[in-house]
């Protein structure tokens, strides 16, 4: 079992999908500061992915400041640093806009929905105010 939610599909890089899934888990509080993160071997076996890919995922998450390697313990989540911003959201937002237009929603309704989600996914300021 992995401590975050991910369901891999083809047509998108595995690295990007898993990094996104972990980022989402940290943002929503599924993973929190100090939580143990699975080893490369566990990641590889659970997701059935190449060990080198699993290794790259962990390296990318360390570079993004979401994970930290602790001697003797393994890799842990560091939620103090905010996740690296500016993920390419264009395609996702486009889908939302198209679905909203088809459903006959107004721009105001979409913004209200986004605001609501924004509040729900942001955790109370405790760990983040330190960073």
């Amino acid at each position, binding site marked *: 079992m992995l401590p975050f939610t991910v369901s891999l599909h*083809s*047509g998108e890089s595995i690295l990007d999908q898993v990094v996104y899934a972990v980022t989402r888990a940290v943002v929503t509080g599924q993973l929190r500061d100090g939580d143990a993160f699975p080893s490369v071997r566990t990641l*590889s*076996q659970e*997701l059935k992915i190449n060990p080198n890919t699993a290794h790259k995922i962990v390296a990318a998450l360390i570079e993004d400041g979401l994970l930290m390697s602790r001697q003797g313990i393994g890799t842990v989540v560091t939620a103090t640093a905010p996740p690296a911003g500016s993920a390419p959201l264009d395609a996702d937002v486009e889908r939302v806009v198209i679905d909203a237009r088809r459903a006959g929603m107004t721009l105001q309704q979409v913004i209200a929905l986004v605001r609501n989600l924004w509040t729900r996914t942001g955790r109370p300021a405790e760990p983040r105010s330190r960073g």
Partner: protein
Amino acid sequence: MNAVETRELTRTFGTLDAVQGLTLEVPEGSIFALIGPNGAGKTTTIKLLMNLIQPTSGQAMVLNNESRHLGVKDWQRIGYVSENQELPEWMSPSELLAYYRPFYPTWDDALCGTLQEALGLTAAGPLRTLSRGTRMKAALLASLAFSPELVVLDEPFSGLDPLVRDELVRALLEMPGHRPWTVLVSSHDVDEVERLADWIGFINNGRLTLVEPIESLLNRFSLVEVITERETVAELPAVSNWVRHGAAGRTLRFVDTAHDQPESLQRIGAAFPAATIRSSRMSLRDVFLVLARQGAAERS
């Protein structure tokens, strides 16, 4: 370092060129997938590497030994499992393990236990009475428990249900001594392979048409859609990296096989001014289909 290296490896059967001028390298520690349609030459290639048949010309080096001279000492470092493995049918899985164990000085009981758990192999009774999946598990376990340096698998997933595939992959991803073994796997189950492999070799009509890291392959291939305002663009300009996919309504689709080049988007924009252009990443399955169709077109 390469675990396997071939140079101009060729095997003919009568007038059939089963494998022609095959040159490839399998880097140590990689998971190398040899993919291609049925009858492409995958099994012949593996049989050549395992010294089950001899090349008509050319050469293959396996763990730094010429394939023609592979002997007992080499077999103790190679785990080989094929789709139609011959097994001592009267033995149970645990008898099979006890039978193989003395042949391998590096046999590792602890690893054997871990693998057995990963495989979910609990069945007893003679192999001939067990399911295809269970027999495959037993064969794989017996070939991994001595921690081989090289694992060679010929169509390990074909005809198996998703649960068994999952268990086989899990066992393959065990890392004895915390470093992955080199795996050479032939398969046409591209969905499994897309996650597992870091190197892809595509073989078609006995020829290797492509060998490269999967990451660069999937970055390179892109499905491009050109959407015009009024009329259909039915014709695709003859550009060497573009492969026509189809056209319908306002949309023309083609595959750009050099989409990672910086000038690629400019080139498409210049060819289709005033059109909306979308490009999306392809799955290995879609890339496989493009390559296989190209091969079929060349043959006819």
